[in-house]
């Protein structure tokens, strides 16, 4: 049998690996293992259970909750029955959940716990299609009388009974699948307007993973920790698509709050995350170093420059001289090894950052301490990643070359167009938007970039985010913003200046690090607001801004800035669920503050 779809690959793995560990999940403090054989039973039983509840080919199953084994079972089960799985961010509020359930015509919802169930029940009257809410963890729900609710366990049980009656149905269903079938709908985080549901086919995912696996060296003996929300295409790729293709083990942390600890215990082979997390890890290191004893601080100060020098040789693809290699080994023994262990990345071979540009200073820092992070370029509409640098193609700010199977070209204004089997099928229920996105097979990404003489792509910014000042100069705000965010005191920066005389900036301070600084400097404060409005904090941030300004030409410097008096929050629609800034919302919401900076 040709394996053209994820469930077909799944069957292959089950036959090939049977008793090997496919999944681990930490429960009650212990890593519980699921072999490929048991994995198969869960997916099969749940799929048959869905069938008893009235599931038909083409139906959608929405999955709502933090990452866990059942998330993946439900995902594969829906696909195996020729259905479509729709992931929803666990942090979404009831209104956003309603929007996606309605927009995707979901008949079934798989919800992780009481918190998620409550969101669905709150809006169920407006969802006429909804047939069942299947609950993974019934804690606190046993007294709910709503007939919509059924437990995951119960569904598997009825499924097992049905399987005994029709033992061939499940595998036959999988064999009848076609590569062109839509497998999942992924809602784009929507930095502009409402989220749109991108339909992704099996063909798209498999051609993406086929291309990418020629660049990233995954082995079936590897282990990976599921860190980002599974409804995000990047995590789907690492926790579902890649393991189906390669057969490695996926680990689920005990809870979102214990992720860092659990990472340390597994030490995954690959670590992919968004810039926000890379930034946070860096500022945590810096703060801990400030509080460390003298000797540790000295080691840190002495060893990092060694790494810097060595990483520079490596980035330029030059051989590292022997004495530097020796010094780097010493630095590894003294510092880098412990540091990587702290981060839970001791065994990691593949470090990737994606979804937004990572500050060049951060990239250099990570490379010096032996964490050669590479930036990739991907998007939901390309079924995941489409540009990934090979080992010798890693450049600061560059995202490498397209993966095998993807073609690209640049438009007149620098916009990136991509083509290939991994281009998505279209936006669900929105042919207008699809027509705008795909023209003659070319995906219009809305991102602007440049290519150097080696053919490596450098991203400039989102096309619509580029600032054209009143003086007519084009400026990419993300470059300046990333420089600012490299400061441990600045968590978020939004540069403003489109059609204006000069650039200004809204800044959100990093509560943890600034309050630490305030305590060391004996500055009294009570809340985020009192800290943000404190004149000394304003001075501190002013210094940081000045420092950043030195790196840019005169038109690109920040003339005025203002510290936001509240923290940006996805619940207030200021950030997307992946913590990307929604520029338009913020510019509207803080209009008065912005106007005041130009008066």
């Amino acid at each position, binding site marked *: 049998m040709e394996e053209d779809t994820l469930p077909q690959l799944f069957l292959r793995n089950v036959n090939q690996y049977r008793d090997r560990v496919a999944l681990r999940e930490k*429960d009650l403090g212990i890593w519980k293992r699921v072999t490929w054989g048991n994995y198969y039973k869960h997916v099969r039983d749940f799929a048959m259970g869905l069938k008893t509840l009235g599931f038909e080919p083409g139906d959608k199953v929405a999955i709502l909750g933090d990452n866990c084994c059942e998330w993946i079972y439900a995902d594969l089960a829906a696909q195996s029955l020729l259905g479509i799985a729709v992931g929803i961010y666990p942090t979404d509020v009831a209104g956003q959940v309603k929007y996606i359930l309605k927009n995707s015509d979901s008949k079934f919802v798989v919800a992780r716990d009481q918190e998620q169930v409550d969101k669905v029940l709150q809006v169920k009257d407006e969802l006429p299609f909804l047939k069942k809410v299947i609950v993974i963890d019934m804690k*606190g729900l046993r*007294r709910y009388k709503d007939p919509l609710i059924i437990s995951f366990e119960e569904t598997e049980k009825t499924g097992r009974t049905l399987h005994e009656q029709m033992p061939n149905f499940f595998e036959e269903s999988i064999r009848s699948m076609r590569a062109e079938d839509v497998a999942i709908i992924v809602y784009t985080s929507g930095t502009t307007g409402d989220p749109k549901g991108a339909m992704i086919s099996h063909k798209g995912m498999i051609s993406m993973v086929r291309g990418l696996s020629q660049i990233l060296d995954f082995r079936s003996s590897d282990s990976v920790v599921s860190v980002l929300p599974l409804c995000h295409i990047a995590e789907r790729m690492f926790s579902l698509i890649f393991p189906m293709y390669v057969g490695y083990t996926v680990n689920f942390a005990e*809870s979102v709050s*214990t992720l860092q600890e659990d990472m340390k215990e597994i030490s995954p082979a690959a670590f992919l995350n968004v810039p926000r997390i890379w930034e946070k890890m860096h500022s945590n290191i810096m703060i801990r170093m400030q509080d460390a004893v003298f000797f540790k601080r000295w080691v840190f100060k002495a060893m990092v420059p060694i790494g810097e020098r060595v990483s520079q040789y490596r980035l330029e693809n030059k051989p590292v001289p022997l004495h530097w290699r020796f010094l780097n080994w010493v630095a590894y023994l003294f510092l880098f090894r412990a540091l990587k262990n702290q981060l839970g990345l001791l065994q990691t071979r593949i470090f990737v950052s994606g979804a937004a540009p990572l500050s060049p200073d951060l990239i250099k820092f990570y490379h010096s301490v032996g964490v050669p992070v590479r930036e990739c370029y991907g998007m939901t509409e390309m079924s995941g990643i489409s540009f990934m640098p090979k080992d010798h193609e890693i450049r600061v700010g560059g995202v490498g070359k397209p993966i095998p199977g993807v073609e690209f070209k640049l438009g007149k204004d620098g916009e990136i167009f991509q083509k290939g089997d991994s281009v998505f099928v279209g936006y669900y229920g929105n042919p207008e938007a699809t027509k705008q996105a795909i023209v003659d097979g070319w995906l219009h990404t809305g991102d602007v970039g440049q290519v150097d003489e080696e053919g490596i792509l450098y991203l400039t910014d989102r096309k619509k985010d580029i600032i054209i000042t009143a003086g007519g100069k084009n400026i990419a705000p993300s470059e300046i913003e990333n420089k600012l965010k490299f400061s441990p005191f600045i968590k978020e920066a939004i540069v403003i200046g489109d059609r204006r005389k000069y650039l200004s900036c809204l800044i959100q301070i990093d509560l943890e690090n600034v309050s630490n600084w305030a305590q060391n400097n004996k500055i009294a404060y009570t809340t985020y607001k009192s800290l943000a409005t404190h004149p000394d904090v304003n001075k501190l941030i002013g210094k940081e801004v000045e420092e950043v300004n030195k790196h840019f030409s005169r038109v690109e410097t920040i003339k005025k800035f203002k510290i936001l008096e509240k923290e940006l929050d996805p619940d207030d629609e200021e950030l997307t669920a992946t913590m990307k800034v929604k520029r338009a919302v913020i510019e509207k919401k803080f209009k008065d503050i912005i106007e005041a900076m130009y008066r």
Partner: protein
Amino acid sequence: MDQLEIKNLTLEFGGIVALQQVNMKVRKEEIHAVIGPNGAGKTSLFNCISGVYKPSEGDILFEGNSILNEKPHQIASSGIARTFQNIELFRHMNVIDNLLLGRHHRFRSGPLTGIFFYGRALREEIRHRQKVEEVIDFLEIEKVRKKIVGALPYGIQKRVELGRALAMDPKVLLLDEPTSGMNVEETEDIARFVLDIKEELEVTVIMVEHDMGMVMDIADWITVLNFGSKIAEGTPVEIQADLKVIEAYLGGGD
């Protein structure tokens, strides 16, 4: 059947009467709140139930049997666990050890087998650790399981103390001001846990609480004390309309 029955309970310290002829019935699996102004005798009542104070008159029946003459540790073993108004944890031990102490009375292996940590001692340790982990999962404190208690934020310490009481596998749980000193969010968390304790673990909860919002939201039955006497009892709706209660809280109109 009433799980806990308090009959004509009177407690005196010299000339001061802390409790006077208090009668109270607690049904199985209910959340029973005890409220009243400061000095009304709420904590004294708890101390009588858990055997710290000996009342001068009256009786306390737990599942039909009097526990009046039993020692505090015997009462605890029979299934009545409690938390304290001010946190009473072992500050220099970690969370797991504190919770394991809640199961101390159930350990049967002696120090000698403990030294070799083999056979029964090992099996027992695993069994109790399993229970402790279930409590940790229930209260969502996985992140701090290996942290030293003294270094934890106040709200989490309160949760750990609740966890130690739960680790005892109680039938009745006495909570003395579970939300004192907490912010709104922490209070809501505790309210949710108390409801889950009743519904998931099927444990009867008796709590002293000053946060009236929480009491009115989650209590099934309320007993009001004032100057050591019971002045009212009933459902939250009844209590809110009771003139005597309003008088006790806001002062008399005469």
